């Protein structure tokens, strides 16, 4: 492909700017729609809200212009729209909870939307910081083992006595200076960097050295090391922290990265077997896993429907009541479903925005993932490929697990939707994830330098590794 001599007439950042205007418009429309449905009038401060969003996401856009001008133009606007939609739905639920509290004579619970907005701002700031600090994604390769350490430490932090706290039966939170934080989200990023770095170095060994067992080429025991270690780490997370979803996520992403790095189908087989074995072990040993599977299989059984499977069933009812077009933002009863702002935000969207809303949402996520995988395919260095794969696939797997659980395709896991659900740690970590993806995308899409007229004239390049 010949590089263009002149600069492109429509740079990616221009496309991005246009799309961002739409994104912010949609976010504002969603917010306005909630206000109209609930109070019959446009919400006060709507322009201020729109201005704030424009400022925030505009800053992200400007950062991209300066720091990653060739990056993919679609990811930021799509992620912005999802974030904005999440804000509107969380706000809508705040209103519903306030109404209900007033009707019953209880105290009105504190609103979640302003907190989510604050965390969005923190997320965007860290997005810019990541772009600033990481000028070339290959730099991260140097920190492979540091990342591994950081990741493991972050994973283990909630288990420590002083700062760790158990919320709703899961020990995944830490409390520092009045703030609750889920280090698991950051741990995921760190471990992804570790894994990409490790695989880049070891991939040949893992791909080529093998033994024949039962007619299948299996890798050698010593090379199996990392997979088994991560598998055990995942299960350890599950056991001690009771976080079923995160271990599933880690495991799935690592197996996918292994497969991509080594190009060997046998890794998928091993991964599948370990997964099945581990799940069975978990199901038979842990009561809460057993319960989750029971709720999934027998959601409508009379013994479950008003107690254990209440959340799942009411979510399904809500989505069924929503039907094709939904009840309209602000016009359904999403507050009936427990934890509608976090785990079950998809059910709230299904009820109020209908099947069309759900399909649009899924396609938005699919677009982000697809752009991420495309980045992985087109970036030239192996570390970038693996890292981009890991980042994109983790988004895909997370969305699959959450939506699958809410729609009763698979058992519930307690994971939340990236950018959509209420939760500061998740939001911030996902913005950093997108920053990394955009950084890699910038490298992937940067036009190659024009070839020199003769070898003698070619600039000597110093490649810093």
């Amino acid at each position, binding site marked *: 492909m010949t590089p263009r001599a002149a600069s492109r007439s429509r740079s990616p950042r221009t496309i991005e700017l246009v799309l961002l205007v739409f994104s912010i418009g949609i976010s504002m429309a969603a917010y306005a729609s909630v206000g109209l449905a609930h109070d019959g009038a446009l919400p006060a401060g709507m322009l201020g809200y729109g201005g704030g969003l424009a400022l925030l996401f505009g800053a992200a856009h400007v950062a991209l212009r300066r720091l990653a001008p060739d990056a993919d133009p679609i990811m930021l606007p799509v992620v912005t729209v999802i974030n904005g939609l999440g804000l509107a739905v969380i706000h809508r639920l705040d209103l519903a909870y306030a109404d209900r509290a007033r009707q019953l004579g209880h105290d009105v619970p504190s609103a979640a939307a302003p907190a989510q907005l604050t965390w969005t701002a923190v997320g965007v700031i860290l997005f810019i910081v990541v772009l600033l600090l990481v000028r070339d994604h290959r730099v991260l390769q140097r920190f492979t083992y540091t990342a591994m350490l950081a990741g493991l430490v972050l994973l283990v932090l909630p288990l420590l006595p002083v700062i760790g706290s158990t919320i709703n039966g899961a020990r995944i939170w830490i409390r520092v200076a009045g703030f609750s934080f889920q280090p698991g989200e950051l741990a995921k990023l760190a471990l992804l960097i570790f894994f990409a770095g490790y695989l880049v170095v070891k991939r040949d060994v893992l791909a080529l050295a093998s033994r024949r067992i039962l007619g299948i080429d299996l890798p050698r025991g010593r090379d199996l090391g990392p997979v088994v270690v991560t598998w055990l780490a995942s299960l350890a997370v599950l056991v001690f922290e009771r976080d079923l979803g995160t271990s599933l996520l880690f495991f799935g992403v690592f197996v996918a990265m292994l497969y991509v790095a080594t190009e060997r189908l046998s890794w998928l087989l091993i991964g599948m077997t370990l997964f099945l074995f581990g799940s069975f072990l978990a199901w038979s040993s842990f009561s809460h896993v057993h319960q989750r599977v029971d709720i999934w299989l027998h959601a409508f059984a009379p013994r479950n429907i008003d107690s254990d499977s209440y959340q799942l069933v009411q979510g399904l009812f809500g989505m069924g009541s929503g039907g094709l077009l939904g009840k309209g933002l602000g016009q*359904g009863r999403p507050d009936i479903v427990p934890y509608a702002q976090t785990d079950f935000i998809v059910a709230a969207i299904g009820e109020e925005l209908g*099947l069309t809303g759900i399909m649009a949402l899924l396609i938005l996520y699919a677009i982000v993932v697809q752009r991420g995988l495309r980045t992985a395919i087109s970036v030239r260095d192996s570390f970038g490929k693996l890292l981009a794969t890991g980042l994109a696939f983790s988004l895909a797997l997370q969305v699959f697990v959450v*939506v699958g659980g809410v729609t009763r395709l698979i058992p519930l896991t307690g994971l939340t939707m990236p950018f959509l659900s209420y939760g500061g740690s998740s939001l911030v970590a996902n913005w950093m994830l997108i920053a990394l993806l955009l950084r890699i995308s910038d490298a992937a899409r940067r036009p190659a330098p024009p070839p020199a007229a003769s070898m003698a004239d070619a600039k000597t390049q110093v490649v810093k590794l």
Partner: protein
Amino acid sequence: MNAPLRRLSVAVMLMFGLLLLNANYLQVVRADALHHDSHNPRLIAEEYSRERGPILVAGRPVARSVETNDRLKYLRRYTDGKLYAPATGFYSIVYGASGIEQEENSVLAGTDDSLFVRRVIDLLTGTPPKGGSVALTINPAAQKAAYDGLLALHARGAVVAVDPTTGAILAMVSTPSYDPNDLSSHDTAAVRKNYDRLSSARSRPMLNRSIRQTYPPGSTFKLVTSAAALESGKYTPDSPIDNSSHLNLPQSTAVLPNENGGPCTSGQPTLTVALENSCNVAFGRLGLELGDDALRAQAQKFGFDQAFEVPMRTVASRFPENPDLPQTALSAIGQYDVRATPLQMALVAAAIANRGVLMKPYLVDEIRDPKLSILEKTKPEPFGTAVSPQTAASLTEMMIKVVEDGTGTNGQIPGVKVAGKTGTAQQGGGRTPHAWFVSFAPADTDPKVAVAVIVEDGAKQAEISGNGLAAPIARDVMKAVLGS
């Protein structure tokens, strides 16, 4: 690494595809079932937040939703609850709905497909959604006359009046009745108490006797037997009949007497006279000669052995399946296992009145949208031909004689030709008989009303006869229809 990456992309596509398919399954295929599941509180919250449409009788609402201040926005209120309860049914948070409230629920709740355009318009103009209205065919004067008549006797019973030319139901009364206001309140504790009281009461006030209860029709069934005779071609109104005072039932030692214990008449014993005097022997003999197949076929042409949907589903009236000879004779006089709803007997009269063509009965006249434009007007539909026009004319003449000279003189209306038939249906087991009267008027020109009245157990009066107890009520109903 690009090859496995591409395969991974395909896998991711499949994952999302699976999610999309599953969402479609949930929100399209199973949407209705999930929405209407009894554990889903959203349906009730939704229904009660909208103004439910009214049920109208002669343009005035007998059931409507009024705004309230409590947690459910609208309350269902009934005017003359007990009078119209058999038609309207009830509408309750706890116990669902019955009658028209249930059958036309989608129109009243505003969710019916026919209201789709109205919903879209309301959505665009920001008007709060309302239900459509259902206008019934009931004639309020006739309904009241029927109800007052049964109430005056302190009777359990029913009255059904239909328009013979269209099948429109002009009156549907069942006593004792209940007040649907007792079940529509938002105080669920009170509602439960009322429901328990009503459903356990021995007089069964919530039973719609006009369409959901069958009784032995007794002598009113002789209309069907006469029709079968005339239709067979072997008899005319002047054919001679068995004038004995007793009929020995073949294959048994049982004996069927006439009502008065003696012969049918002292004069010329014809079929007409037999109907006039309601002679058991004559009709028993007729039944034996015609055979149960002919009787059954004729009964089915009148609507027996099948249920109607008016739109509420009626109970089917029955002619016994395999009666032996004595049973056939008894069936011919409307006893043994013959069972008819009051609606069915009204339809028999209506078919005769309408030159032999039976029209399908219906209760809903019009469906209107919340802005009162007509969405649907029921078109009368024939059920079938019960008898030929000649037979119908002959039967009409015979029935006029019954009212003028025979057992049904209390059905007379000055200045109007009334055709009728009395019935006193034995129940056996020491219970007092039911008193029946079926009639139509005017019988000499275009008929306007056909009515059937049953007074259960003859209201346990000292003297029980169709003429004495049921005919006056029928007369008042016919007068009300003709007068309006």
